[in-house]
């Protein structure tokens, strides 16, 4: 079939328009953590793989904020999952899977770090520069009067906080865990200790922003404390 080449060009132009050829794929309902957990306890490989894909990298990232030993951070991810696999019938019903994973991960990591430190005597082992935040510059837009410098300031005052306060902020705001969950993960005896530490972190940042009403407002928006 003969088709003039010029016509072909028109087809090309037509096809590059972004509204053309739209493909919207239907969303399949993803199982919740608790549904996965139940299947894992029944021995399902698929559920186990899904749980692993949901949390292995998150736990690893959490661990690498605490220790410089990346291999250890990975080993502990394995330990946590191996424990679940070996004990699955003995594990009781858990309310928050995420919380269980983070809490057991952190506990085991710290225990191993303590043990290893006795052997290695390595000061650099424990990180003090983990849980930092970063202002993504690609969010910079010319439509507002805020300059990069001002945004960087918010980043800086958050990163100037003690590491434990940054960890609370990460768990509560970025991982969206509750006070109770944060307290359990960070091994605090009272829920109010988690809450207090978080308020202290926000108060510290507010102090650093003294006199800058606009930024304090922004601070509260970034880290809203109400439930």
């Amino acid at each position: 079939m003969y088709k003039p080449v010029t016509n072909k060009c028109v087809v090309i132009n037509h096809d590059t328009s972004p509204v053309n050829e739209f493909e919207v794929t239907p969303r399949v309902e993803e199982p919740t953590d608790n549904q996965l957990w139940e299947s894992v306890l029944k021995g399902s490989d698929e559920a186990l793989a899904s749980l692993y894909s949901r949390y292995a990298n998150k736990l690893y990232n959490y661990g690498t904020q605490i220790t410089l030993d990346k291999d250890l951070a990975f080993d502990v991810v394995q330990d946590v999952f191996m424990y679940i696999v070996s004990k699955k019938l003995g594990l009781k019903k858990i309310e928050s899977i995420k919380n269980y994973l983070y809490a057991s991960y952190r506990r085991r990591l710290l225990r191993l770090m303590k043990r290893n430190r006795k052997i290695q005597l390595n000061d650099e082992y424990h990180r003090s520069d983990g849980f930092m935040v970063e202002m993504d510059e690609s969010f910079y837009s010319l439509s507002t009067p805020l300059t990069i410098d001002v945004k960087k300031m918010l980043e800086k005052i958050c990163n100037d906080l003690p590491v434990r306060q940054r960890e609370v902020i990460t768990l509560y705001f970025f991982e969206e865990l509750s006070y109770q969950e944060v307290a359990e993960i960070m091994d605090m005896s009272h829920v109010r200790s988690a809450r207090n530490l978080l308020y202290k972190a926000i108060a510290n940042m507010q102090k650093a922003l003294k006199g800058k009403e606009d930024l304090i407002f922004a601070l509260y928006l970034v880290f809203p404390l109400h439930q």
Partner: protein
Amino acid sequence: MEFNPTRTSDFLENPFFVKWVKHPNRHTDRYWESWNTKNPEKQAIFLEAIQIAKGLQPKESNQLSADQYQLGLDRIIAANNSIDKDQERSKKQRKSQRRFLTLGGSIAASIVLMGMAMVIWVGSHKESNDPVLVEIPMVVKTAPKGVKKSILLPDSSRVILNSGSEITYPAVFGDQRVVHLKGQAFFDVERDTLHPFIVKSGEIQTSVLGTSFDVKAYDELEVFHVAVVTGKVNVRTDDGIETNITPTEASFYHKSSKSLSKQHYDYEALIGWKDKILKFNRATYHEVFRELSIWYDVHVVIPEGMILKGDFTGRFENQSLENVLKGMEYTTKMHFEIKEREVIVSLP
């Protein structure tokens, strides 16, 4: 009740506002947009705060390497299955001990065992209806020669697929948004820091959280490129060589040496294709003809024995093949003749 803040802190004591900033949806969007237009004096601070709230992210997102991840998962799955075997073994041991029991006892024991088997059977039967076992189908999209395609991915990221290219992705993304590309595509990725977006193409993979960038990886090419328009991009080869590139930078992968290089790039030469701009910067004629044959779906015929020396520089915006070839005739000594789907090259 009307929301009428007089101090900035009034915003913060409004849970509805705070919730909207963190988890907006189209209904709350509409509400706050209309509130905003009615209260123009608050607009500046309103916009600033939202920008900051969205831009501040955890600094690091350390990921297991693909090998570590696979190894880790394999071990756990293996353990999951070997434990089952252990349990069966101990069941057998128990059974052999029972050989010494009385007849009545062994009948009772076998009834118990049958009951256990039933429970296990019912249990495993139930599991096969589990929603977890749904297999996610893969979607394959191709843009044949002469055609470009715009595709919307399941996470709302947009892809413009260049001619002669193919992209494969799951109908639903898992924890990582992985797509496979053969050929060239421009990606505009929805930001999602928890689910990295990864483009696998030949021997390189490109990882981002949310940015726009171009990947060119036609099988037959010696050099692949990844060029960034916005955001930050990580390029990594199968050999583990990696580099981070930022806007105006491109990374080039050289297949023969398996090496990565990085430099500033000419936007139109690398990404112009998506805006119908065909631009060559000192390109060899071999490259030029390859590009034209994919772009216009033609076959370029070079007579045997003809040697194409030198290089070509030129820019065409939204032009027909005839015009492109006419333009080339001006600046080169070549002559072109279009015959149906063939372009025949000759020297006068």
